[in-house]
C-alpha cells in the first residue's frame, strides 16, 4: 500500500518478515505501511470488520456510557464479542501475548487500519470521524497495558519519556500535590515532564502542574501524551493520503473504498433539505413546546436580555436556520430583540454581517450546519454566556427545578437528575423529551434539531389522527 511504488511491487513476491517482528505489540502507532499480499476477499473482510469495530466504539457513548469509563469499555467489549470480532476483544486484553492468534489479531488490526485510511482520507468530515474513532481505539488498548507493556511500547516506538528525578519531584512536592487532579499516593507516583502542547486536554481543565511551558503529568496520564502524538501523526498522514488518492485508481478495490462511507450509516443527524420554513411568529410557541431545553433557554434569554454573545448567536442562530427560519425573518428576529438594548446603527455595524455569514451570504459562503449535541456538550461556556448543554453545564439542582417548571413530575425530575449526575447528558435530554411528550425516543437525542423534528412529528401525528 505504498503508493509510490504500488505498480511495481504488486506482482513481486514479498519476503515477509516474521510476524513477531512486524507486529510486536498490541498497541501500534501504524508508522509503516504494510507490504504484504492479501486476497481481495480478505481485504474486504478485514476492512468491514474494522468498520464494525469503529462503529461499535462510536455507539458505546450514546448508549449512556461515559467516554473512557470502565462501563464504556465493557460495553464495547461485549458488543465486539456479540458481533463475533474476537480478534479485537483479544487486543483489548492488554496481554500482548505471543500466540499465533495474537499475531493474527494484530496483523488484521494493522492491515485494516491502513485500508480504512484509504477510505477515510477522502473528505474533512470522513477524516475527522475516522480520527476520533481511531484515537478512542488507541486509548482502549493503551490503557489496558501493564506497566511492563507501556515500557515496551515506549521502547519500540522510541518515545523518550523519562520520569523526573526524585530530587525534582521532592522540590516540587507542594505544587504537584496541589495541582495534580486525582492524585492519590504522591510517593508512589512517577511524574513526567512534557511540553504542555502535548497534553492540551489536561491543561484545559487545570488538571496538571505547569511550569515554564512544561506540564508535569503523573504516569497515569501518559496516555494523553502518546495519544496526542498519535493524533498528530495520523492527522498528517491522512492529509498526505488525501492529496494522493488519485494514484489509487485500482478498479478492484476502488469502488469499495470510495463507497465505504456509505456503508457508514451512523446516527449522525443530518439537516434535511427543502423542509418547510417556519413562521417567526410561531417561535415563542415552538420554543415552549418543541425546542430542547438548551434552545428553549437560549430563546428565553434572548427575549428577556435582548442579547447573546458570539457563541450563543452561532449556536442558536444555526439551530433556527435549520428548523427553517429564513434569512429575512432571522434578520428581523435578531434585530427586533437586539435593538431593545442598542441603537439600530450599532446593530447594523456589529451583528448583521454575523447573521449573513451564518446564512452563507458573505465571506466564505459556506453552508454551516447546526451544532450537534456532542459539539454543544464539549463547548466551554464563559460568564454571561448561555449556550451549552443544560444537562452538562448547569448545576444539577437548577436543571431539576427547570424541568419541573417545564411540566416534568418530581419523580421524573429526580430520574433526570440521576442521569445528569452520572454524566449521561444526552440520555437525560431524552428523558426530558419522554416526560414532556409522553413518548420515548428510540434512539436518544443526538442533535437539537433532531429533538425539534421528533417533537414536531409527534404533534403532526396527533393532529393527523384527530382528522
Amino acid at each position, binding site marked *: 500500500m505504498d503508493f509510490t511504488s504500488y505498480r511495481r511491487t504488486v506482482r513481486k513476491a514479498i519476503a515477509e518478515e516474521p510476524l513477531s517482528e512486524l507486529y510486536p505489540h498490541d498497541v501500534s502507532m501504524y508508522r509503516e505501511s504494510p507490504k504484504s499480499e492479501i486476497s481481495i476477499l480478505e481485504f474486504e473482510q478485514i476492512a468491514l470488520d474494522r468498520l464494525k469495530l469503529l462503529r461499535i466504539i462510536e455507539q458505546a457513548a450514546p448508549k449512556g456510557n461515559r467516554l473512557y469509563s470502565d462501563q464504556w469499555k465493557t460495553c464495547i467489549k461485549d458488543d465486539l464479542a456479540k458481533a463475533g470480532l474476537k480478534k479485537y476483544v483479544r487486543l483489548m486484553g492488554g496481554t500482548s501475548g505471543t500466540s499465533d492468534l495474537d499475531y493474527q489479531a494484530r496483523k488484521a488490526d494493522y492491515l485494516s487500519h491502513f485500508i480504512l485510511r484509504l477510505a477515510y482520507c477522502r473528505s474533512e468530515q470522513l477524516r475527522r470521524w475516522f480520527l476520533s474513532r481511531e484515537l478512542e481505539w488507541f486509548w482502549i488498548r493503551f490503557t489496558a497495558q501493564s506497566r511492563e507493556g507501556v515500557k515496551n511500547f515506549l521502547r519500540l516506538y522510541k518515545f523518550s519519556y523519562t520520569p523526573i528525578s526524585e530530587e525534582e519531584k521532592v522540590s516540587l512536592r507542594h505544587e504537584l500535590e496541589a495541582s495534580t487532579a486525582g492524585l492519590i499516593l504522591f510517593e508512589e507516583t512517577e511524574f513526567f515532564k512534557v511540553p504542555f502542547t502535548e497534553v492540551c486536554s489536561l491543561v484545559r481543565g487545570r488538571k496538571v502542574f*505547569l511550569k515554564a511551558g512544561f506540564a508535569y503529568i503523573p504516569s497515569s496520564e501518559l496516555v494523553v501524551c502518546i495519544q496526542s502524538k498519535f493524533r498528530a501523526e495520523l492527522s498528517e498522514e491522512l492529509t498526505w493520503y488525501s492529496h494522493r488518492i488519485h494514484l489509487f485508481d485500482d478498479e478492484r478495490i476502488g469502488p469499495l473504498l470510495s463507497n465505504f462511507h456509505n456503508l457508514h450509516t451512523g446516527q449522525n443527524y443530518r439537516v434535511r433539505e427543502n423542509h418547510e420554513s417556519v413562521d417567526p411568529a410561531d417561535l415563542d410557541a415552538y420554543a415552549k413546546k418543541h425546542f430542547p431545553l438548551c434552545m428553549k433557554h437560549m430563546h428565553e434569554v434572548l427575549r428577556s436580555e435582548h442579547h447573546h454573545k458570539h457563541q450563543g448567536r452561532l449556536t442558536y442562530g444555526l439551530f433556527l436556520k435549520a428548523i427553517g427560519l429564513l434569512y429575512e425573518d432571522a434578520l428581523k428576529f435578531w434585530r427586533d430583540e437586539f435593538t431593545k438594548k442598542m441603537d439600530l446603527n450599532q446593530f447594523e455595524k456589529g451583528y448583521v454581517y454575523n447573521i449573513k455569514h451564518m446564512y452563507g451570504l458573505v465571506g466564505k459562503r459556506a453552508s454551516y450546519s447546526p451544532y450537534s449535541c456532542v459539539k454543544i456538550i464539549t463547548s466551554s461556556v464563559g460568564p454571561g454566556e448561555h449556550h451549552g448543554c443544560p444537562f452538562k453545564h448547569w*448545576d444539577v439542582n437548577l436543571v431539576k427545578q427547570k424541568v419541573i417548571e417545564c411540566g416534568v413530575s418530581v419523580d421524573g425530575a429526580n430520574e433526570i437528575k440521576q442521569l445528569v449526575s452520572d454524566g449521561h447528558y444526552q440520555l437525560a435530554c431524552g428523558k426530558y423529551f419522554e416526560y414532556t411528550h409522553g413518548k420515548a425516543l428510540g434512539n436518544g437525542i443526538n442533535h437539537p434539531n433532531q429533538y425539534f423534528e421528533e417533537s414536531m412529528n409527534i404533534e403532526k401525528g396527533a393532529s393527523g389522527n384527530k382528522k
Partner: protein
Amino acid sequence: MSASLYNEDSLPDLLPIYYKRLFPHTALHKWLCYGDPNVSNRREISFTLVGDIYLRYQSFENAEDFAQALHKRFPVKIDIGAIYKQRLESSGSYSSSKTPVEREIVFDIDMTDYDDVRTCCTGAGVCPKCWKFMVIACKILDGALREDFGFENILWVFSGRRGIHCWVADKKARILDDNQRSAIAEYLTLLRGGLVVRKVKFFNMHAATERALKVIDEYFEKSILVEQDILGTYERLDAFLGNIDEGFSPLFRDAMTKVQTSVERWKAFVNTFQTLQREQKIPKHYRYMVEEMKFYYAYPRLDINVTKSLNHLLKAPFCIHPKSGKVSVPFKPKFIEHFDPDAVPTVSQLLDEINTYDAKTKAQEKDLAENSQTSVKIKDYKKTSLLKYVTIFCEFLRGLQASAARNRAIKNGTVMEY
C-alpha cells in the same frame, strides 16, 4: 489647553496628520514581520475606513508601502490578522485557499464583562475604581503566561477606552494551533456561565490558582469590598448569596444582615464559614467557598473566542479609539497600577503638543540664530507625550530581537540549553 478637547466629528481631519506625523508605522511593521522579508507579504493588516468600509487581507511589502497606504486611506481602525501560508493578494476578497499558519496569542479583556460585579460605572464608562479590575486581570494573566507557559515577549496594550489587550509574541506561541490556543484560554478561564449557582468551583488549589489568589488578596479589601462596595446594599447582598446553594445561604444571610458595611459583611461571611467548617457542616467540595467568592468578584474575565483561533483580528496598538479619541497605547504590566486611562493622550492633544513644541523651539532658535548653529531635526513623536509609549513598544521589539538571536544561537549549537 482647550483646543485639545477631543471631538468625535473632527476625527477625519485629525487622522491624516496623526498618520503622517506621529503613527510609528516603521516600528509596527517591523514587529509584524519579525525581521523576515518572507513574512511581510503574508501578514494580514486590515483597515476599517470611515463609513464602515472594511479592507481585509491586505499586506505590505515594507514599512514605506504601509505608510503610503495609511496616508492614502486614513483608516479609522487597523486590525492585525494572522500570517498566512500563501502571499496575500491585495484584492481582498475571501478565498478558502488562505491558510493561517502563525499568529501571536492574543487576549481581550473588556470592562463590560464585569458589569454584574462592578458597581461604579456601567457600559462604556470607566473610572479609577473599576480600572482595578484590569489591574488585577493584567497581573494574574501576565504571571500565568510567564511562569506557567514560559512566554517572555508579551505586549500589553490599553484598548483606548475601557479594556486591555495582550499580545504574546514568542515564536513558540505564534506557531500554536487552535486546539492549543483554546487549551491556554480555557486554562486561564475559571468562571462558568449558564445557569449555575457557583460560577467558580475549585476541587483543589492548583498552583496557578494559588498565585492568582495572592494577587486578588492584594486588592480584595480595598478595591472590591470598599470601592466596589459589593455587599453594601440588600440587592448586592442577595446577588452575593445567589452564589451559594440554597441549603446554606440562610445561615450566611443571618450573620451578614446583622452588620452594615461590605467589609463587615464579608468578615461575617468568612467567620460563619469558618465556624461551620469547624462544626463539620461544610461538605468537602465546598471547602474553597471563600476563595471561590473572591475569584467570582475579581478573577479576569476573558473573551476567549478572541484567544481561541489563529485568525481572529485584533486592533493594532497606536490606533485611535474613535469614541474617546485616545491612542491605544502599550504599557508595562509592572506599572499597570500607576497607569491611568484618563491620562492617555487623545489625538488632538498630541497634535497640540507638536505645535506647542515647535512654537517654543522656533523662539529658541531665534535666540540661538546668532550662534549660527544648524538645528537638529527631531522626530515629531518625540515632541509629544506619545514618546514614552513608543519607547515601551521599542523595548518590546528589542526583547523580541534578543529572543530571536538566542533561538538562532541554540539552533546553530553555539549555546547549549537543556
